[in-house]
């Protein structure tokens, strides 16, 4: 069971890994959306992607649009982990196919609750 973490910040990738890995996921990491697409093609099946918005090369919104344009990934859940809090931006991402939002800064509990909401984390974890 794979989780893909896409963020240009290695620090943020580590923070997310330390929260998600104990849930039983094998972690894949990418530094931008383009690298994320490569990871998806190499991994085959990925349960959930946690994607930042503001990244070089290919940003998170472009990544989400590219993924949702490909039927191969229709079952994959996507959580945008971002500092973007403007309603217009959030609406844009939801329209593009994001399943959930986590606003930075966040706590482990907030992220795990969001993963439970979209059905990719065991509901008993961390209770």
């Amino acid at each position: 069971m794979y989780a893909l973490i896409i963020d240009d910040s290695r620090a943020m990738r580590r923070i997310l890994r330390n929260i998600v890995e104990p849930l039983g996921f094998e972690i894949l990491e990418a530094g931008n959306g383009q690298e994320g697409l490569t990871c998806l093609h190499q991994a085959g099946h990925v349960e959930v992607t946690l994607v930042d918005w503001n990244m070089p090369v290919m940003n998170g919104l472009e990544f989400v649009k590219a993924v949702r344009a490909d039927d191969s990934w229709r079952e994959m859940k996507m959580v945008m982990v971002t500092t973007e809090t403007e309603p217009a931006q959030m609406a844009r991402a939801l329209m593009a196919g994001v399943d959930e939002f986590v606003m930075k800064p966040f706590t482990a509990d907030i992220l795990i609750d969001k993963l439970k909401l979209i059905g990719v984390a065991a509901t008993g974890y961390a209770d």
Partner: protein
Amino acid sequence: MSIDAQTLQQVVNDVCSGMLGLDMVPTDQACCDETDAVSAVIRISGGWDSLVQVLAPRTTAKIIASTMFATEEAALSEEEIRDAVGEIVNMVGGNLKGIVEGESSLSLPCVGNTGGEPPFGADFVGITVAHNCQGDPLIVRLLDKSAIPG
């Protein structure tokens, strides 16, 4: 809505204390040895035009990076230290952008060693807030360019 010092302080606290669990104590001592500090700057442009700088002396930068990477300070690379301070300014800038009305966009963080050069220039007028982060200083500056008389 414009940003005041109290709001800026709260945002910094939310990022460093709320998310990372760092012990943050506000202080009036908004100075540090800028000759050996890590500086991260991010620009907000569009509806609100501003610059945010996080200035962390090396001791503070290592504390932040050590917490983010869950790694001993001695094992941290220079890249990891810079990355950690860059993520702090990214989160602070992003949250400030969300508070101010109007649609704006956030640049990517620009991180480097200050070498004593004030990034906003000697005539900087803006908001500066300082914290003791686990006992070491962390300074955040906000330059609201839209507030500067043209």
